[in-house]
């Protein structure tokens, strides 16, 4: 019996993922008295969260007294083109300030205002300067603070373990997770009463992405395979400013903080083009001249914000349109210029890691020369469908928080709203998962299920002459980039769905050469399963949404459609098929709806006045 030899651990709560969401969940779960473990694919402290740059959004009111959770809520909903789960957006806006202050209590050192409080910076789509930050390395501060707190609180951490499948007990509740240690290939089984998915994003399925190798959509796929619903999977955020050159770093992120701190976008003609792309929905609050936009940095009360700080979907599409119209930079992007706008000292102090990144990787001094930037796949709005208050998935025993969860950001996420999402819903997930675990009796896991899962995981190793996993991964990324990218259309999406069927066949024949010890080709072969699942979920949901909204732009349906504005797409696994079902969006109560009275509605994509 294979089972007898598998290392097995029992906990009340097991958390899959050690980014901001997983670590915050662990702290809360332990605090609630639950025996808690964290499992992660990399070493502790290396999760994607470490790369976050610009800041964490919370209406702290340290810089603008006029700010409030209501304004943050409103900005978030409008940024998401009103498709957000209203309750999640409300909880997020209400609780983010406490979560940020708590980080300070745990040792985080944020940049300060003149009065000695946490400083906040401007970011796209946020009415007031709202992002608490540490230069441009906020994610490092967040993950380190939470990691140190979790370790001193007594979390047990299983590093470099990849979870391959979730397992159900006889009542259909998730009660086990099978994984293996990457360093020696030996399997490990976790039994627990609650599992929290905090496994991050899906960006690795695209060719040009700001995401690390870990973002293969494992959490999304584990949930779907375990019978949970996913929602909003068509919405993928392309961040407007990724590096475009050298090729080897194409996609690497350039923080929105550059624009928040005064940087502007120019085309090859030297024109500041964003003024041509101001959508109806945001016209009333956006500057219509360069002079007004520039004055706003100093005097926000009497001026409107520059269009470089529109929500990300708008800016990304505008850049895309400029490049398409032949006004791009030499390497196929546009210019992001802060050198001509701020002093070298200011730039180095506010944006030290951007300075470093360009200097070291592209030989460009950003205090002298403009950067070349273009859109890069960045963030998954879609994810596991959860109950807003408890972060519970639609399957018993399973919770989800952070990027892997869906609903909070609607069709487009505002910058800074992810880090706050991690701590707000990480905490809620930890609390609810622990409480439920402490009330439950233990359950039984069938041994044959474990053995089947184990054999599936070993398959690539038993097929050393199979196809090279890196080749399949590369081709999949090309396909998603070309057919399910920033601008989509019916025929290409249909083609994508067909091609994904071919990929399924190829993945069945994938092979890994070598042994079980830290074998990257085996790990990559297994990652393909989840990459393929999330790709299919995304392509199918995108095909069904015949409108343009937020992170989903259809060339063939350029307008927003009010009917689709009331609809979520729910993705499920039925038998072996991934299906998409439209369901009505939860309706906001009147007192929240009144915050939007008189506000313009989403109209779809804006084409340049000039182009038209």
């Amino acid at each position, binding site marked *: 019996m294979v089972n007898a030899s598998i290392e097995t651990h029992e906990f009340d709560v097991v958390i899959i993922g050690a980014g901001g969401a997983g670590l915050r969940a662990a702290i809360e779960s332990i605090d609630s008295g639950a025996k808690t473990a964290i499992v992660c694919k990399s070493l502790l402290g*290396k999760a994607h969260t470490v790369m976050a740059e610009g800041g964490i959004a919370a209406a702290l009111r340290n810089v603008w007294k006029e700010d409030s959770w209501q304004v943050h809520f409103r900005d978030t909903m409008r940024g998401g083109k009103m498709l957000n789960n209203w309750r999640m957006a409300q909880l997020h806006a209400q609780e983010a300030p406490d979560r940020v202050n708590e980080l300070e209590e745990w*040792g985080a050192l944020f940049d300060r205002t003149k009065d000695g*409080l946490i400083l906040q910076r401007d970011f796209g789509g946020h009415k007031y300067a709202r992002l608490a930050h540490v230069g441009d390395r906020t994610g490092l*501060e967040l993950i380190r603070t939470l990691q140190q707190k979790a370790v001193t609180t007594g979390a047990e951490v299983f590093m470099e373990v990849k979870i391959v499948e979730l397992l159900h007990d006889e009542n259909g509740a998730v009660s086990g997770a099978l994984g293996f240690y990457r*360093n020696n290939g030996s399997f490990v089984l976790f039994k627990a009463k609650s599992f929290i998915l905090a496994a991050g994003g899906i960006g690795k399925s695209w060719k040009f992405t700001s995401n*690390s190798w*870990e973002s293969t959509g494992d959490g999304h796929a584990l949930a779907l395979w375990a019978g949970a619903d996913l929602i909003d999977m068509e919405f993928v955020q392309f961040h407007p400013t990724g590096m475009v050159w*050298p090729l080897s770093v194409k996609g690497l992120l350039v923080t929105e903080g550059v624009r928040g701190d005064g940087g502007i976008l120019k085309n090859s003609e030297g024109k500041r083009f964003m003024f041509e792309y101001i959508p109806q929905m945001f016209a009333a609050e956006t500057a219509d001249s360069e002079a007004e936009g520039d004055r706003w940095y100093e005097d926000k009360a009497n001026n409107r914000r520059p269009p470089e700080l529109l929500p990300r979907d708008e800016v990304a599409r505008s850049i895309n349109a400029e490049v398409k119209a032949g006004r791009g930079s030499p390497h196929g992007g546009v210019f992001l210029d802060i050198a001509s706008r701020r002093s070298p000292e200011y730039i180095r102090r506010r944006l030290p890691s951007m300075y470093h990144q360009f200097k070291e*990787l592209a030989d460009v001094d950003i205090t002298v020369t403009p950067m070349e930037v273009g859109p890069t796949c960045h963030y998954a709005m879609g994810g596991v469908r959860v109950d807003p208050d408890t972060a519970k998935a639609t399957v018993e025993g399973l919770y989800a928080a952070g990027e892997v969860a869906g609903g909070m950001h609607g069709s487009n996420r505002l910058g800074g709203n992810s880090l706050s999402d991690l701590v707000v819903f990480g905490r809620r997930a930890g609390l609810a998962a622990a409480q439920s675990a402490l009330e439950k009796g233990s359950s039984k896991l069938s041994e044959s299920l474990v053995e089947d899962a184990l054999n599936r995981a070993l398959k690539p190793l038993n097929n050393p002459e199979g196809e090279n996993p890196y080749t399949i991964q590369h081709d999949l990324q090309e396909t998603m980039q070309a057919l399910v990218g920033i601008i989509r259309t019916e025929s290409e999406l249909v083609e994508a769905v067909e091609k994904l069927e071919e990929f399924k066949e190829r993945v069945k024949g994938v092979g890994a050469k070598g*042994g079980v010890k830290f074998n990257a080709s085996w790990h990559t072969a297994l990652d393909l399963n989840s990459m393929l699942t999330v790709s299919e979920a995304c392509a199918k949901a995108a095909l069904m949404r015949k409108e343009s909204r937020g992170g989903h732009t259809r060339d063939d349906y350029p307008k927003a459609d009010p009917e689709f504005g009331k609809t979520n797409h729910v993705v499920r696994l039925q038998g072996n098929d991934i299906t998409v079902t439209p369901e009505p969006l939860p309706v906001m109560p009147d007192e929240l709806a009144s915050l939007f009275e008189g506000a313009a509605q989403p109209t779809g994509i804006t084409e340049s006045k000039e182009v038209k």
Partner: protein
Amino acid sequence: MADLVVRLWRGDENGGEFIEFKIPAQEGEVVLDVVHRIQATLAPDLAVRWNCKAGKCGSCSAEINGRPRLMCMTRVNQLPEGEPIVITPLKTFPIIRDLVTDVSFNFEMLKKVPGFKPKPREADGTYRMYTEDVERGQEFRKCIECFLCQDVCHVIRDHEENKEHYAGPRLFVRYADLEMNPLDTNDRRQLLVEKMGLGYCNITKCCTEVCPEHIHITDNAIIPLKERVVDDRYDPIAWLGKKIFRKSKKVETDAK
């Protein structure tokens, strides 16, 4: 462009050897890109750690031509042209496989650091700290835990036995971070001397030289820590003064 010649150490705890790879050069690449191309085409099971590819996570540490560096921040065109690129795993830590080493020593040491204990909030519910108060600590909090400083420190590089009672530069940076946090009330100085081996460091500054975050490990972390410790132990007046001044500091002598 001419082909690159890469000599990569491959093996595990039972031993290994240099394997030479020839691979076409490509413009603008860093060493990690070359390693990845070798992995994708010539050696699929090659073991290497990485995450961010932007010098932010500290995963891809290795020794390149004998110098501890981040592979993702080392551009190929900065290395001597026409010569082979020699890549070996960090020497101070046990080998797992190829370029991957067992760095758990560092995580075990980090676990022993007594946690942050903040003083109470002010009457208005805030903590007031000014830029000049946080700047010192912020330097230490830039640490990406690449452990290159640990790798190069001679106290443990050639002396496995010292890991019993010596924490190493990364840990001293962590202690300095806590020590210089304006809100913290824990006092870890005795622990630093008695259990963490602060005294073993003889200020060679090798750690500072390799730090990719340019943290002044010796000047700003280790030397001030040594001074504070010495003050306390051998100068009764300074000791008394500090005790009275920071009377809220609880003395931690035991590693957690």
